[in-house]
């Protein structure tokens, strides 16, 4: 009992530091979101939930929210499926496996801003290599339908290696005996995957889903550099919208309300996954 108390004191400095660098800024944003602020006129008045009321009527917000959900859903599903395929491949024994593993990580190693610029040039409607290779004449980043999908493709290209590495680690934890036993029982490759690999990989898959959903929901740099939210706000995600409102039009109060909304959404996603994991995978 006393030892626990002593321990608490030892942890206090860390807790205080965390409070200063994470909890305080979060509270400050919440506080700002309850105000109407005009920096150049020095106006700062308390308006209660006015910003949030406006948010509910703001079509651009709903647009950004649906873009974000679409981006998150599609990119995360693709990343997990492709990542699993990559992991299964890299788990096989063949010559040059080490080289393949290293090269597959290349997209993950490039900074997001650099790969966004790179893809912007690849997607270029007039001189882009993508149109040349496909023999098409599509303005990938200027077309309201394609622009968001172009951003998703770039994100999938960039982040699949991350999913693949985590899943590969999970695959290597599965004891080989289980496969031998299942084979003795007459299981083919499909059944081995369905009844041995998938169930045992489930906790890792859930972890990948959590990491990627939270990251994808807050996506900023990839979209901001690739399209800047255009054309006609069709690729604008919540973070990009919040950034524009906060730092370009300097509506500190409303921008903070948007930021708080992103925070709450991410919190809800995380809570949902944790509940799901706690129940289904027996993880806690």
């Amino acid at each position, binding site marked *: 009992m006393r030892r626990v108390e002593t321990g608490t004191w030892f942890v206090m400095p860390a807790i205080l530091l965390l409070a200063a660098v994470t909890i305080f800024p979060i509270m400050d944003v919440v506080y700002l979101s309850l105000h109407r602020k005009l920096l150049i006129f020095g106006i700062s008045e308390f308006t209660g939930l006015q910003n949030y009321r406006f948010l509910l009527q703001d079509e651009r917000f709903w647009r950004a929210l649906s873009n974000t959900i679409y981006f998150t859903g599609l990119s995360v599903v693709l990343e997990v499926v492709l990542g699993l395929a990559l992991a299964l*491949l890299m788990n096989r024994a*063949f010559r040059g496996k080490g080289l*393949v593993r290293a090269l*597959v990580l*290349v*997209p993950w190693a*490039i900074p997001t801003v650099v790969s966004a610029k790179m893809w912007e*040039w690849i997607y270029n409607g007039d*001189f882009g*290599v993508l149109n040349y290779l496909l023999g098409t004449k599509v303005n990938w980043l200027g077309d309201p339908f394609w622009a968001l999908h172009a951003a998703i493709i770039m994100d999938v290209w960039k982040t699949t290696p991350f999913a693949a590495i985590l899943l590969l680690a999970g695959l290597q934890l599965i004891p080989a005996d289980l496969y031998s036993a299942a084979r003795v029982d007459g299981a083919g490759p499909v059944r081995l995957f369905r009844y041995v690999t998938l169930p045992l990989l489930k906790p890792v898959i859930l972890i990948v889903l959590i990491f990627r959903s939270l990251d994808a929901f807050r996506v900023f740099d990839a979209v901001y550099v690739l399209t800047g939210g255009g054309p006609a706000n069709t690729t604008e995600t919540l973070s990009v919208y919040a950034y524009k409102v906060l730092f370009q039009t300097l509506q500190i109060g409303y921008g903070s309300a948007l930021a708080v909304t992103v925070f709450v959404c991410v919190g809800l996603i995380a809570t949902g996954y944790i509940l799901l994991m706690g129940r289904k995978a027996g993880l806690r």
Partner: protein
Amino acid sequence: MRKGMLYLAALVVVSYSVAPLVWQFLTSLKMDYELTRIPPLLPEAPSLAHYIAIFKGRMFLRIIANSAQRGKAALK
């Protein structure tokens, strides 16, 4: 036969991962007037002019030093 499939899959995966970077590298060797030209895919007269320009720029050393500082801090 099965080994062949495995290598084919590995080849597809690796080219998918590396192709955009290779394209960026090829582009870096092109002269400015070639950037708005496609085909050809390969640079007509590969040139290191852009790389030389990087090192001639006054800011480059500063930028590298800043990145190194950042890396040092991250390692601590």
